[in-house]
């Protein structure tokens, strides 16, 4: 090997903090989003502790409001939205397209600093009393009545939004301009398609929430009148602007996850993806349709019933590309030689849990049904199946799949499989009872509940503790593997993709010579390859 690995050289803290190497920036992000994941989890622990008993005893209502708000803000803005794109995406997008780096390496580093700055400001707000508005910052509570640190948190989230915009911008330009010779659009791995679609939403949606939060801050801090009903303003307008971004934000969280799953399913079924173009365009379809459905969060807000009907009908359309993906992954498994390695266990977990989350999403997009379960635990369970069952499963699956590439070492397979199982069991025990609680009418965001709901709540809290253990195990053995894990070859899984043609871990320049691509992204089915070639 002529070049040293990106991990080995150059050395020193300074070389890491000033790096413009996309792989090192991915590591910086991995460390920071992991910290925020455990911070967000700590708030979840407090919430589940309070809900062990029907009485509001461990914390008061006011504190509880701050707990679920900060759980939501931290998990959504500082973990779920950046997690897969900034860690796996940053590491893999240039490698998968045969480039030496992203189009704007310094902008990439800047986006990490912007993230750290925004997150630190929000953290400061949390320490200084916290926020109690819910992660949704609804007006006029947020602008007028809340006694939490709305302005500071709003500014923190506003700043973090620019990190997201810069990442999306970088990916779009990179995918357009930096592809290796011969790498046409239909030869791109589906991971790249998913990240392209995600970037579209980051770039077109995030600025709207930035402006919205700015308006809230202007109203609260400067006394301007924007959404203030006392001056003729319309608080529902805030919800429109908020959800114009925040509904697509859900797809910002789950689309990269879908990209990961497409890679995992093909690699561990040893089969080319079924219906490549459908899966690719389904990503774009989800990204675009995602901007037409936000009103389904507002069915009971006072929004026009006619707008509600249109938003309800449009919301059903999102099920089509989502189902295409699930069906095509399943069809890819058919007659494949499936191996149940750790990443594949996570992929199976994703497919099942995402399907449950998606189907219950259809319940909620039905206007008539949503009126009954709106703001109940049914909604909470639904979106945790998508975000935790979907995004975090895929994040962990992807992290395990590409860990040999990222770190150059292998993790203990037995422990990894065990923890994947623990996470799956813990997750379902935590969140399935919440569907039932919501169906029985338990509203979200209350710290007390009727005693007859206690059994389901105790189950949920018990599940959460199992889930917490499940998340800690990979933390330990992945750290352990960096020092003690066996060194791995360039392509330990026998997977296709340009990233596996480089040494593990790759050299700083990724490729000694720019690769020339002459074949389709998935070359597992040799028979098909022969027919095509």
């Amino acid at each position: 090997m002529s070049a040293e690995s990106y991990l080995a050289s150059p050395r020193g803290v300074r070389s890491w903090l000033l790096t413009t190497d996309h792989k090192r920036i991915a590591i910086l992000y991995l460390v920071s989003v992991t910290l925020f994941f455990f911070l967000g989890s700590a708030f979840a622990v407090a919430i589940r502790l309070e809900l062990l008993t029907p009485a509001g005893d461990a914390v008061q209502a006011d504190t509880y409001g701050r707990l679920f708000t900060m759980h939501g803000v931290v998990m959504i803005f500082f973990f779920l939205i950046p997690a897969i794109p900034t860690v796996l995406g940053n590491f893999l997008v240039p490698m998968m397209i045969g480039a030496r780096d992203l189009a704007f390496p310094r902008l990439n580093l800047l986006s990490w600093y912007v993230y750290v700055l925004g997150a630190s400001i929000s953290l400061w707000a949390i320490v200084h009393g916290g926020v109690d508005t819910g992660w949704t910052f609804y007006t006029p509570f947020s602008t007028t009545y809340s006694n939490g640190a709305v302005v500071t948190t709003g500014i923190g989230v506003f700043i973090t939004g620019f990190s997201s915009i810069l990442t999306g911008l970088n990916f779009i330009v990179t995918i357009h301009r930096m592809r290796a010779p011969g790498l046409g659009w239909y030869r791109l791995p589906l991971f790249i398609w998913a990240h392209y679609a995600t970037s579209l939403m980051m770039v077109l949606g995030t600025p709207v929430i930035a402006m919205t939060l700015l308006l809230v801050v202007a109203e609260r801090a400067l006394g301007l009148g924007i959404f203030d009903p006392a001056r003729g303003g319309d608080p529902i307008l805030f919800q429109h602007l908020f959800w114009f971004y925040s509904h697509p934000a859900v797809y910002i969280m789950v689309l990269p996850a879908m990209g990961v799953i497409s890679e995992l399913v093909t690699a561990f079924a040893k089969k080319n993806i079924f219906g490549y173009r459908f899966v690719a365009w389904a990503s774009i379809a989800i990204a675009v349709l995602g901007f037409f459905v936000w009103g389904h969060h507002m069915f009971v807000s006072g929004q026009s019933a006619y707008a509600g009907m249109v938003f309800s009908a449009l919301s059903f359309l999102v099920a089509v590309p989502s189902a295409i993906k699930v069906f095509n992954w399943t069809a890819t498994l058919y007659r494949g030689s499936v191996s149940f390695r750790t990443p594949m266990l996570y992929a199976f977990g994703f497919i099942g849990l995402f399907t449950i989350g998606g189907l219950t999403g259809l319940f909620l997009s039905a206007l008539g049904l949503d009126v009954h379960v709106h703001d109940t635990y049914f909604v909470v369970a639904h979106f945790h199946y998508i975000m935790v069952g979907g995004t975090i499963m895929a994040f962990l699956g992807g992290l395990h799949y590409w860990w040999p590439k990222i770190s150059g070492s292998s993790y203990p397979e037995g422990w990894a499989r065990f923890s994947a199982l623990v996470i799956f069991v813990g997750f379902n025990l935590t969140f399935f009872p919440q569907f039932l609680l919501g169906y029985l009418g338990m509203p979200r965001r209350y710290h007390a509940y009727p005693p007859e709901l206690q059994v389901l709540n105790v189950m949920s809290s018990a599940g959460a503790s199992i889930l917490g253990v499940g998340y800690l195990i990979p933390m330990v053995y992945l750290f352990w593997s960096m020092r003690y894990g066996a060194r791995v070859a360039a392509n330990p899984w026998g997977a296709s993709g340009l990233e596996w043609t480089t040494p593990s871990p790759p050299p700083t320049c990724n490729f000694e010579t720019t690769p020339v691509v002459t074949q389709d992204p998935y070359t597992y089915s040799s028979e098909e390859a022969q027919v095509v070639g």
Partner: protein
Amino acid sequence: MAEAGHSQAPVSSLKHHFDDMEQQQAASTLGMWVFLATEVLFFGGALTVYAVYRLVYPAAFSAASNHLDVRIGAVNTVVLIGSSLTMAIAVWSARRNGPRSTRMLVGSLAMTALLGSVFLAIKATEYSAKLAAGLFPGPAFRFPGAHARPAELFYSLYFVLTGLHALHLAIGIGVVAVVAARAARGRYDLEYHGPVEITGLYWHFVDVVWIFLFPLLYLVGRGG
């Protein structure tokens, strides 16, 4: 000095991860355009609020808009369009070699920054007049006539939109100044002029924003 700069520029200006100058230029142009699409949606958030309130409170928006001075707005529009002209000429001359086009580049960039500053100066006098008239929203807001409360919405949007526009313009002036200083050192030529080009794109975008803000804020209900 300038000669050496010219011969060195193509080599040192190509960043390591690009194959050639053409790819680097295409990437930076696309990057700026994607950023500008982001900016459209950023201002778009506040413009959506404007659209809703204007349709809900047409009379109040007319009354409130009539307290703005059309002449100031129109003059500022022409100033900004003029700065776009000089910016366009700057980009044109950046793509040429030779000391004459370098002088032209530096001169038109300086003119652009100057016109931008004129715009801000006029805006500042306008702001202070509005503040003196009690038109800044909040407890001290004073509006004669029947539509005081929705008029406060109008002026909230007025200050948010024009304030953010002015901020963008101020950033633009700073960037143009930096680019002009580098241009004076002979940094840009036919081979390498990307920074001038994308600064121009940004500047024109700020102009476009004002092209919409002018009629939306100053020209409501003037015909009665």
